[in-house]
């Protein structure tokens, strides 16, 4: 039985889809069999971010409704070994499936794959309930903004209420120079409020925009800072003990890495 991980946040636009795509790709690069499930029915994006949009024939709703077999709806990503995508339907809405159906679907997928990673829609309504129904692990993504942290807190509460204990936190899009100046929430403050385990911190990176638009996950880009952060996160998901460099030496790590790539020249 594989693991079923839901990536969620409450707030929109914090990077759930990007995180899903990169963790999934990273796990596949590590030799695991992975299926990414887009649970955002009606507002699907994961297929676009993965660059697989034009290969969709059947989708999640077709599988649930029995229009096609599960295998037919899975899109194989030819660039990475053992990476599949189950796209969401775009012409339906969240009410097209119910939590019981999602539970069955993710259960079936978990028998075939090491990791089933669900990209949860924003919000706490039907879509959220569908996405978490079959999950046995949760990753909460937030950004260093009070609104995102507030929503993450609400989500953590809802996850725990539905039996998903110990969700893990990813802090996305942090700008260490702003944190240093006191213009951005720092990591410790966020962990103080949310009080869950930190899975990783992903720095703000222009390459994310580039890779998203190209449909190539940034984790595969060697020189990307965000890519490095995702590679570390993947290893932590796999149970490796990768030290939190950013926590031990605060911004020192990022500065060092930035200097390494000559990125510190562009001042914010």
């Amino acid at each position, binding site marked *: 039985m594989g693991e079923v991980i839901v990536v969620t946040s409450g707030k929109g636009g914090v990077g759930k889809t990007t995180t899903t795509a990169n963790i999934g790709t990273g796990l596949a690069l590590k030799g695991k069999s992975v299926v990414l499930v887009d649970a955002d029915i*009606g*507002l699907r994006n994961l297929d676009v971010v993965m*660059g697989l*949009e*034009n*290969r*969709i*024939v059947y989708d999640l709703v077709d599988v649930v409704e029995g229009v096609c077999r599960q295998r037919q709806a899975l899109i194989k990503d030819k660039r990475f070994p053992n990476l599949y995508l189950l796209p969401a339907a*775009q*012409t339906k809405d969240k009410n097209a499936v119910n939590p019981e159906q999602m539970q069955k679907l993710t259960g079936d997928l978990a028998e075939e794959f090491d990791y089933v990673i669900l990209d949860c829609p924003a919000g706490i309504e039907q879509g959220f309930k569908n996405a978490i129904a079959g999950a046995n692990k949760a990753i909460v993504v937030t950004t260093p903004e009070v609104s995102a942290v507030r929503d993450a807190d609400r989500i953590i509460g809802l996850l725990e209420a539905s039996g998903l204990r110990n969700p893990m936190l990813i802090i996305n899009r942090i700008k260490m120079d702003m944190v240093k100046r006191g213009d951005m929430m720092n990591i410790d403050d966020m962990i103080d409020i949310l009080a869950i385990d930190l899975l990783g911190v992903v720095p703000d990176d222009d390459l994310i925009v580039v890779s998203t638009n190209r449909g190539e996950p940034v984790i595969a880009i060697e020189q990307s800072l965000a890519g490095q952060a995702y590679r570390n996160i993947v290893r932590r998901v796999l149970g490796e003990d990768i030290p939190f460099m950013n926590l031990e030496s605060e911004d020192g790590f990022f500065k060092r890495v930035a200097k390494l790539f000559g990125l510190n020249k562009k001042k914010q």
Partner: protein
Amino acid sequence: MAENAVIFKGTKDGLYIILKEEMDLSTIKYNLEKKIKPSKRFFEGANIMNFKGKKLTQDEFDELKEIMEQEYGMTVIGSYNDKDYPVHEEHRGAKKPEILEQLPFDNVHKGEALIVRATLRSGQLIQYKGDVVVIGDVNPGAHIKSAGSVIVMGTVRGIIQAGANGDYGAFIVAYKMQPSQLRIGDIITRSPDGMGSKSDNPEIALVKQGMIVVEPYLKNR
């Protein structure tokens, strides 16, 4: 509302003046003056088909007609008697000229078509049992499923499914063909990866030897 005592209404037959039922003649005259005076030059020479709304007596009608013609330089075309029988009502009863079918060659397809005058956006699905004509674009994530052919007077970026009941003779035509996917019958094709060169010419997609082929349909351009 005194402002609405008099309303100018353009119809396909011409201009009508609609008089509010409960207004007396002096109010109407006052309101006409108020409406027309500021833009007298605009109204000058205009043809008024008739008055509508309030029932007028012959005298009232004549008085209003005189005011319109003498003071404001407009022409009232209708007469008192046909006031309640607007001109277009007469036309409505008239027999429309019937268009006889004349098909000079064989390569003609006859059938029902759905005409969509809108841009289809992500998540919008159109399913139809005949042909579909879109006057607008089909954006990524939009989906047209048609039993017949599909014609898009715009750019196709989404998914077009023609001959959805298994008709391999169906085709897809677009001003700009940049689809994420085309399907004819049960044959599926997608744009090549890596966003290659895009044709700026109108193109047609049809089935040739079991494959969907996209080519310009105006060969000598």
